[in-house]
């Protein structure tokens, strides 16, 4: 029998299984993104406070999350916390927790950056027109911040989707893991299966992330 690795994709439910694997990835990252955005906005506003204590606290949190590889955070959450506190976190819940903590830190930094990039004279001219602090925030600051933030937030989302593939290492069967299982099961009948399976995974990731990042580009151009 000639080796046509492409057939592997149509064996049994293989393709469906790959899609299910992708859905696991997407589910974890989307929940994390949806939680990270509001939490990150709050964290970003918290970071702009002038109080030295809140400054230090938020700085430490951000640096901690940034310095730690996500993999280490995942291990700490899944293996460490489970042992240390006896909480029984499922792998998926640990993953959501870690990605939310990470997303909140990154989103917060984006929000802080957008807020401090609004020139001081925008605040001054709003004040000179008799606007209260709240009116200035609602009519002047938030709309300008949003414009800067939307493309950046979308980029963060695609980064989070891609990074979610790490969850395989705490035992979650996501798309890469499914792919590996399929390749291993067909190693003898279809030696070139790997090429096809990883090719499909590549295409799936592309299909998931490309619309999101091209939307980001469009928004960026529109709002330049």
């Amino acid at each position, binding site marked *: 029998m000639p080796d046509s690795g492409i057939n592997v994709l149509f064996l049994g439910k293989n393709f469906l299984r790959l899609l299910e694997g992708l859905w696991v990835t997407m589910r974890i990252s989307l929940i994390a993104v949806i939680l990270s955005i509001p939490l990150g906005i709050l964290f970003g506003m918290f970071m702009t406070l002038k109080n030295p204590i809140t400054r230090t606290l938020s700085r430490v949190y951000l640096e901690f999350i940034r310095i730690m590889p996500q993999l280490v955070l995942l291990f700490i959450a899944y293996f460490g916390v489970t042992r240390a506190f006896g909480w029984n976190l499922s792998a998926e819940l640990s993953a959501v927790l870690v990605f939310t903590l990470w997303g909140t830190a990154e989103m917060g930094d984006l929000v802080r950056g957008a807020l401090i990039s609004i020139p001081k004279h925008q605040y001054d001219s709003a*004040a000179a027109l*008799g606007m209260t602090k709240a009116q200035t925030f609602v009519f002047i600051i938030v709309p300008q911040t949003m414009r800067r933030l939307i493309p950046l937030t979308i980029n963060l989302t695609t980064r989070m989707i891609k990074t979610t593939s790490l969850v395989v290492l705490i035992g979650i069967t996501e798309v890469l893991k499914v792919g590996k299982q399929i390749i291993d099961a067909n190693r003898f009948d279809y030696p070139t299966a790997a090429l096809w399976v990883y090719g499909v995974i590549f295409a799936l990731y592309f299909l998931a992330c490309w619309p999101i990042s091209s939307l980001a580009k469009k928004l960026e151009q529109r709002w330049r």
Partner: protein
Amino acid sequence: MEESIQLQVSGLKKKFGAETVLNGIDLDVHKGEVVVVLGPSGCGKSTLLRCMNGLEAPTEGIICLDGAAITSGGKNITKQRQKIGMVFQSYDLFPHKNILDNITLAPVKVQKRAKGEVEQQAEKLLKRVGLWEKRKAYPRELSGGQKQRVAIVRALCMNPEVMLFDEVTAALDPEMVREVLDVMLELAGQGMTMVIVTHEMQFARAIADRILFLDGGGIVEEAPPEQFFTNPKTQRAKDFLQTFTYEKRNKIPSEIESFERRN
């Protein structure tokens, strides 16, 4: 004259940390008067204007508008700022709103006026400064001079009693300075009370009812424009005015010769 005092500054002191920027300023601005504030860079002209509408809190002293004290912070201040229009050196339009929305935002949201009425007034003012065609454009599509004219209209649409101008032409290309100054001259002609900081000496001379020369944190000289520019009393004012005049230097003969030979 007492009751016609619109803006009154008494004993104003302002410190930034240990640095005293304004050290006891007394100034009465009468209704319809145009006061031009001159002085070397860093002498506190902007700070004086910013104190006048509560953007900076005075360290000491009182500023009154129509006899009521302006206290930065507090609810009162937003009411008083509605009566004081201010235009800054930096182009400070709101980049996310088009020209018409830039102008109507505060009258509608702050003064709670009807949108239709405000828009009518805004369009009328825009026509007056020759920018009605630009009402749907965004600030980034305008030249510096056009932006400053819109900023003036935006302040005027609040129907202020006093207008403060802080070097509104300093960041403009020379060919755009005129169009902005003309708007201010017209405004003065209509009897608007104005306090103007500028480095345009010809303009200052033309528009001012009174020149205030600020240096070292205090008012060094106060005079009608003709007197200030032709016959300043203080040495510091003389030195200051000197920096704006250029003396023709005689060319060295050999240079002229070689110039003539070449042509």
